[in-house]
């Protein structure tokens, strides 16, 4: 794994000099800013019983569904399309280092984007200057829990994006595949419950509850940190990355 750091730095450099990255980042922050602004309006017009931080993170899936495919669709697919993957595989680096470096770079960038949203309550505090507003927006427990959740769940989402990129030479196909898998992962259990299917198959209920990403989010964004999601996201990210490595090895 001695080449991992070099590859990681290379990937990060590539990300930070790519105009597409900035386009995606600006779109992400504009969208999240719009959501945040909407929350401020909602809390001004109507009394709410939920912390604003909790509501902010409830909509995490909107940017995830478009950001993660955008970040990851080119990672392996582009290398395969241009033939640079085969060249890379002839060097002393192995498929594990390649996949992990691309995963780590994408995840770091994903976390940095989310960390940029930490500026929102600070900006509102500077613009408005009301102590009670700042206190509600900067409630430590839910804020910390929400960000821990986004970083944690990001490991699985980015891993899925990398895996999708491994399967095809086309960035577009990789992006769509990633979007579909993420959609099923994030919204699938919720839709199953909404349809009442889990009530018919009650033995499935506890498994569905464990897979429910929104349940994890609700706990974290209230400030309740549970160890189960850590195992869920890390182990499944490891599984997906492992399969990605196998795919890259077989394709290269």
């Amino acid at each position: 794994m001695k080449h991992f750091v070099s590859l990681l730095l290379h990937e990060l450099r590539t990300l930070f000099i790519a105009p597409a990255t900035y386009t995606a980042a600006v779109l992400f922050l504009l969208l999240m800013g719009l959501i945040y602004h909407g929350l401020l309006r909602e809390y001004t017009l109507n009394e709410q019983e939920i912390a604003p931080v909790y509501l902010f993170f409830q909509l995490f899936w909107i940017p995830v569904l478009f950001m993660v495919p955008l970040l990851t669709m080119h990672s392996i697919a582009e290398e395969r399309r241009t033939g640079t993957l085969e060249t890379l595989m002839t060097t002393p680096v192995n498929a594990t280092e390649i996949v992990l470096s691309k995963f780590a770079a994408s995840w770091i960038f994903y976390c940095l984007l989310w960390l940029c949203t930490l500026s929102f309550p600070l900006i509102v505090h500077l613009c408005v200057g009301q102590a009670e507003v700042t206190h509600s927006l900067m409630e430590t427990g839910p804020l910390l829990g929400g960000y821990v959740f986004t970083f944690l769940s990001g490991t699985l989402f980015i891993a899925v994006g990398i895996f999708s990129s491994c399967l095809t030479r086309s960035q577009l196909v990789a992006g769509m595949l990633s979007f579909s898998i993420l959609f099923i992962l994030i919204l699938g259990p919720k839709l199953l419950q909404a349809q009442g299917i889990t009530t018919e198959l009650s033995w499935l209920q506890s498994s569905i509850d464990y897979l429910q990403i929104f349940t994890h989010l609700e706990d974290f964004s209230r400030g309740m940190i549970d160890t189960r999601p850590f195992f869920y996201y890390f182990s499944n990210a490891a599984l997906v990355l492992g399969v990605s490595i196998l795919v890259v090895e077989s394709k290269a």
Partner: protein
Amino acid sequence: MNPLSDFKKANFYHRLNRMVQIVLALTLILGINYTATRYYTRGDLSQDRTYSLSAETLAYLRHLNDDVKVIVTISGDSPRSEEQLLYRYTRDMLKEYHHNSRDNSGYHLTVEYVDIYQNLKRAEELSRTYGLDQPNLVLFASSKRQRIVTPSEILEFENRKPTAFRGEQAFTSALLEVTTESQPVIYFTVGHGEMRADSVDPIRGLTEIVRELQSRNILLKKLDLMQWSAVPEDADLVIVADPQGSFSPEEQEILRNYLSEKAGRLILFTSPGRDPGLKDLLQDWGLRSDDFLVLEQDGHYQENSGNFLIRQFADHPITESLLRNQTPLIIGACRPVMESKTAIADDRLARTPLMASSKISWAESTWQNATEYSFDPQADIVGPITVGMLAERSAASQLGINLPGGRLLVIGSGDLVANRRVSSYGNYTFTLNAINWMLNRNSLLAIPPRRIERIQFSLSGNDILHSGLGLLIVPAILAMFGVIVHLIRRN
């Protein structure tokens, strides 16, 4: 050997190897996740540890002596905001109950959510097994008994808005009720024309309140003091429900001994025109209840039908919810219950007037003979007239510490708990509060309610506009960086 078949064989084994790797990895992941679901922990980072259970509840959960099933019929999809709030708080609280019951060796608390309108099959099963067929209820069931918790026990309201969540107190109480080995026992005295626990009569029957007490796992028995030389040992509370006849001196003595020697609890309902023959007992406890009739002048303290509305309450656990929610009691004819002027001074005796009529009411002494009533300052008592008094006596120990002793609650109307009245206004709440307090049920649980925080920003249009513009700063900075990077790359 054919190189092609060698290659095919190698390819086959290569693929098989891959498949086995994937299957083993999958099995490992499943194993890790399964283990994680059984051995996990949770931490509360919220301010004031809002979602953590109290030490009391944790202690009860860790020493569960029976499996407890909790069934929640509150729907999370309700369009009503109060029901959504109720669902959210209940769900979050019960998660902690379930989590903390895992440390218990052998017995667990499981939670099931059932939408009785969507899941008809399960709703039917619940109705058959537990008699649970209403929405917005939480059922606690063990192998011994069950208890239904209603929304009014879970949420506190002020001006029709939920202000506090009392779920932990309600749920832990219910947990205790369904898992404790013994049930509280209330004895209703008989033999003096009392109101009857088994009668559905609207005026003299008590079946409505009896049903609620039984649903709270309280055992109800009859007590004929003519056949007993003492109040039974298992009596946690004795209720004398508006006797039409009088207790004999021997019966009165039995009750006095019960209260004084055994730190007993007694609730006496007595109405105008009756002499229950317990004057000495009341005197013993610093109380008196003359056969006067309370007459009300204030329209605010009267209902359209002429019945009284009691609106003045003490700040006491029995009446604090009525005081806070400004909920009156409705009663028919009532008599005063007051402190006795001739009571012997006793440091250990504390008397609390619980409820009273208005300032412009009075207690009429000659009501039985008069056709018209007018206030006579010589004979009558000017208002506000106390119609419910509580007397408590603490027992002294050898260490000089005051221990809880007997408690006597006297209410000047039996109508309060009659079938026709008990479900009206705050009568039911008052009666249950009084019984729970006399039984020490809620006072064992010093679990404070959680305030429901209501958040509303007072931002002006300018504030919102400036905030919106401010939120554009970060994406603008990033866009600028992007342009700079693009220009540098081009050059």
